[in-house]
């Protein structure tokens, strides 16, 4: 699928939801628990959960940013869960926070 900045995605294997903060300009497969994520507004988001692939079950944390090593994609976790986020099979890692100075 072509990820779009601002898009909200939901896992079909656990409670994880994310927002796309940075997206590559090409088709990629974004998965959680090894299964493709779906748009939160789609009917698939409300379906019964599938079993997660145990190779993708490290969990996600609320409010953390996840990225790939190439830095081409960034997902913000808006609801945590038990599965792992991945892009084209590469498990995403938590991005170190670099907050700007508080300006308001």
């Amino acid at each position: 699928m072509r990820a779009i900045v601002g898009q909200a995605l939901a896992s079909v294997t656990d409670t994880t939801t994310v927002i796309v903060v940075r997206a590559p300009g090409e088709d990629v497969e974004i998965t959680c628990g090894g299964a493709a994520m779906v748009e939160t507004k789609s009917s698939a988001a409300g379906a019964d959960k599938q079993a997660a692939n145990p190779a993708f079950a490290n969990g996600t944390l609320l409010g953390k940013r996840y990225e790939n090593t190439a830095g081409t994609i960034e997902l913000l976790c808006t609801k945590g869960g038990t599965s792992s986020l991945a892009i084209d099979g590469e498990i995403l890692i938590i991005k170190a926070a670099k907050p700007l100075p508080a300006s308001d």
Partner: protein
Amino acid sequence: MMNLSLLLDMTRDGFADRVLLGSHTGGITADDLHRRTVGGARELRRTGATALIYLGVNGPAFPVSMFAAARAGIPLVPLNYRLGDEQLRALVAHHPGALAVTDAGQLDRVRGIGVRAMTLEEWLAVTAELAADEIDEPELQSDAAVIIYTSGTTSAPKGVVIRHSNLLSYVFGSVEFGSAAEDEAALISVPPYHIAAVANAVTNLYAARRTVVLEQFTAAEWLNVARGERITHALVVPTMLARIMTADGVDLRVPSLRTLAYGGAAMPLPVIERALRSWSHVDFVNAYGLTETSSTIAVLGPEDHRTAIGSTDPSIRARLSSAGQVVPSIELQIRDEDGAVLPAGGQGRIWVRGEQVSGEYTGSGSVLDADGFFDTRDVGHLDADGYLFIRGRADDTIIRGGENIAPAEIEDSLLGHPDVVDAVVVGIPDEEWGQRIEAAVVLRVGATASSDSLREHVRSRLRGSKTPDRILIWDELPRTETGKLVRREAVARITRNEPASV
């Protein structure tokens, strides 16, 4: 669900029991706020409101209103409670079917112009009564979350449409979720109809930082509350900092303060220099942004301030007067009059692009150019290291104490006086206010109106903050051969002509 309330849902999920609004004891927790905003949305649905007008001082009712409106799928419209009846009527006419929540003192006035209204107390009571865990919410990314009226360059205020996606992008681009320690607290002293109040409400919420509101600013009260509530973060407009720094007989010590952000107008150099010396333990942040850009687009950070104040190199020292560097999520260009992008050092119009940029006004479409850039109508330049220096508005808007004032509105008011045949209103640099308002008029031959009576005329039609501090009486105004008013000449003549007031 994907709208502004996502921010509150996340904070509730992560920090349910943390007090977010008001004092440590008796304040509103994330879970309370969450449930009240659902309650508020239920009330808005029940009444069929098409917009929620907020006409009052800042306080807990403000974030409750913002997120309740988001959940109900309608925009929040914060209006200036100091507007005259006529101006207020003109603005609410853009929002038929709105419900207004107001200060008790405004209730009769608002109902008098035909708007359904309840007091802030009644609103808080009903949101508590109807509080619940959830409500069906619409997808709203491209819809208006907040509409803020600016005075702009003409006398008719423009409603800036700030979408859910603009505010979400701003927050995700500049704040780390839950980054505030439990002891942090922010002091809010900007009025709710200012974009900074909207930005403050959402960024502090997302950082899970408690906020405390100062309803009516005085230097002494700001200092008292900052000490009493152990405030760690605060945002002020330059006028407020000037007053704090020059207040007589006050205790300036605020040991808890870590970060002081300022913005909304140009900061006079003597004021920031004095503040840096008085509060050497504090991180100062200059934030530059517009209503149309959902607040901050450039930041002069704490290290920049320390480096600048400690430097003898004039180009480094000058950065104290800059707006700092552009934030990562914004692209900025300086363009000349023909639209060509200028290199560092070149002065021109400031254009910006980014997800947080609205670029849309109510009643007119997007004003972005073909490449998605927005014309800030501010003039400035970038230095070799990317520091942005703002020269002023391309237009003539007067910024007095952080409030944008259109000269045309005051000029129209003066021209409405029977003795006045011509009028010009300009901003004169002022250490306390950033700019103060001064005017010059030409009287009808034989007329005898005094400067004081003209000021009273304006005050009775607009309000105190829009009343010129001085009104000079001239034989004629500086105009070109084609009749165009030459404002810069008027400014120069007013500045030179100190004692000419009648």
